[in-house]
């Protein structure tokens, strides 16, 4: 059984459908990358999985239990956390308060403290700036904080929407390396990306186009298949 099983998932905004019934599953311990052009429906997918958008049809199972239909707090309690598109850190709170509040659903004071230490070990920058207001962090630091805050939920599945948006290639690589380390430490990861630099870390890769999945396979297969070139450059069947 896969950790996450998505079947015929449909959702949209108001009367406008976006996801046309997508199905995929993610294995425990793996990193799954979702590629796709702007407007393909990647954010819609992770927001729906996180309970921010209502499920119109289909079903999501997590660890064998149905989670579709739960609201966002219900999903967090089930063990899925999302670092949302655009970071969305609490600008007027300090870095430390951002992390502490991230642990809202947890009651184990010691475990929460350990998670804060762990986030600081992934992102030493955040420890240096722990008393600074989040709104005054650089874009890259805010991205680290957004990921750190999601880690504070102690999820079994961590979803990150646009981890590298607006980051320099070097910082993007740093973030990918940390995500891979988080994955090695036992958390399953879904990461939405436009940056193909993430490919070496992808166990599984999905490509979305206009609300449907056009590729679902191993990361290594994707590299060989030329699908990415087709998607992003509009080229067909040419050697990479």
């Amino acid at each position: 059984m896969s950790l996450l099983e998505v079947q015929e998932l449909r959702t949209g905004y108001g009367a406008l459908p976006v996801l046309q019934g997508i199905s995929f599953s993610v294995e425990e311990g793996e990193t799954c990358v979702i590629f796709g052009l702007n407007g393909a429906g990647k954010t819609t997918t992770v927001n729906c999985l996180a309970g921010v958008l209502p499920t119109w049809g289909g079903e999501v199972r997590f660890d064998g239990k149905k989670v579709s239909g739960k609201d966002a707090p219900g999903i967090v309690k089930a063990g899925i956390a999302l670092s949302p598109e655009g970071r969305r850190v609490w600008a007027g709170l300090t870095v430390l308060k951002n992390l502490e509040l991230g642990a809202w659903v947890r009651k184990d004071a010691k475990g929460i403290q350990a998670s804060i230490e762990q986030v600081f070990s992934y992102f030493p920058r955040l420890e240096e700036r722990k008393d600074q207001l989040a709104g005054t962090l650089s874009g890259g630091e805010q991205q680290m904080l957004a990921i750190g805050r999601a880690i504070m939920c102690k999820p079994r599945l961590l979803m990150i929407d646009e981890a590298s948006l607006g980051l320099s290639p070097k910082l993007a690589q740093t973030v990918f390396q940390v995500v891979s380390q988080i994955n090695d430490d036992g958390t399953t990861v879904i990461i939405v990306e436009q940056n193909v630099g993430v490919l070496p870390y992808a166990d599984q890769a999905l490509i979305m186009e206009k609300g449907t999945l056009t590729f679902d396979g191993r990361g290594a297969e994707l590299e060989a298949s030329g699908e990415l070139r087709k998607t992003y450059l509009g080229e067909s069947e040419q050697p990479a």
Partner: protein
Amino acid sequence: MTPLALAPDTTYLAFEFSSRITTPVISGAINGAVYGLLGLGLVLLYKSNRIFNFAQGEFASVAAFTTYAGTAGFGLPKMPYVFAAILGVSAAVVVALLTERLVVQPLFNQPKVTLVVATAGTALLLIALEGFVFGAEGVGLDPVIAGDALTSGGLRVTNQGVFVVVVLAVLAALTALFFSRTKTGTAILAVSMEPTATSLVGIPVKRISALTWGLAGLLGGVAGILFAGNGGLLGPGALTAFALIPAFTAAVFGGITSLPGAFLGGVLIGIIQTLGARNIPESVVPDANQVVIFFVLLLTLLIRPAGLLGKET
């Protein structure tokens, strides 16, 4: 001049000082404490919903009227003041919660100006209801504690006055601690900054919003009972007419997001208002107590829009 010749002048000056300065400062501080309390509620809702709640004054009136109804009996046995006041504050909390549920939640994703106008509509509705139940002439609510704490040389400080100041100080301190020290207080701030991201860590955003309005209702309710108990007639819309604008000025003066700022702002506004009313002759500026408030509001917005203690959190 001989000292003897000066003597009558000194007595005259002493008399003037007490009636023109000392007494207004004290009675102004007491009124100002109520403005501050009402201002705390405004700041709370501004911090969490980014709106100015025009119904805040009527949350206060509802509490005062309900307390009056409890103490007057209305056919039922008269209640002890304490129970009536608890009933009054509860009524304000219920009205605030209903406002949140029936007005704020349905309109929350509309432009903020729609929401602000809707709170003004809520105030008008409440004023109409108060007039319907209690009549237009107004009623008189007794002070919480009767009697004087101090009378000397033209100075008079009522027990109620002392009580008002103490209650404001305690509530202001508790609210400030609530925001800086408790998880729930921090969560209210978080919801105001990023509602969606806040729900993503498992915080029940709707319940937090209801809680915020409930708290604002509580602060407003206490303010209303204390204000009405200070004397004068309590008519429909009394608190909106006499306290809402000063409370708003207090909140802006204090920096609109600062709880201690609203507290200090309220007391200062109360003092400035009474000083103005006692010292500016009616022939020069009619209704000086109102005009002074607008003057302070304008000056604050012009000179220091961030207010006295204005900064986030």
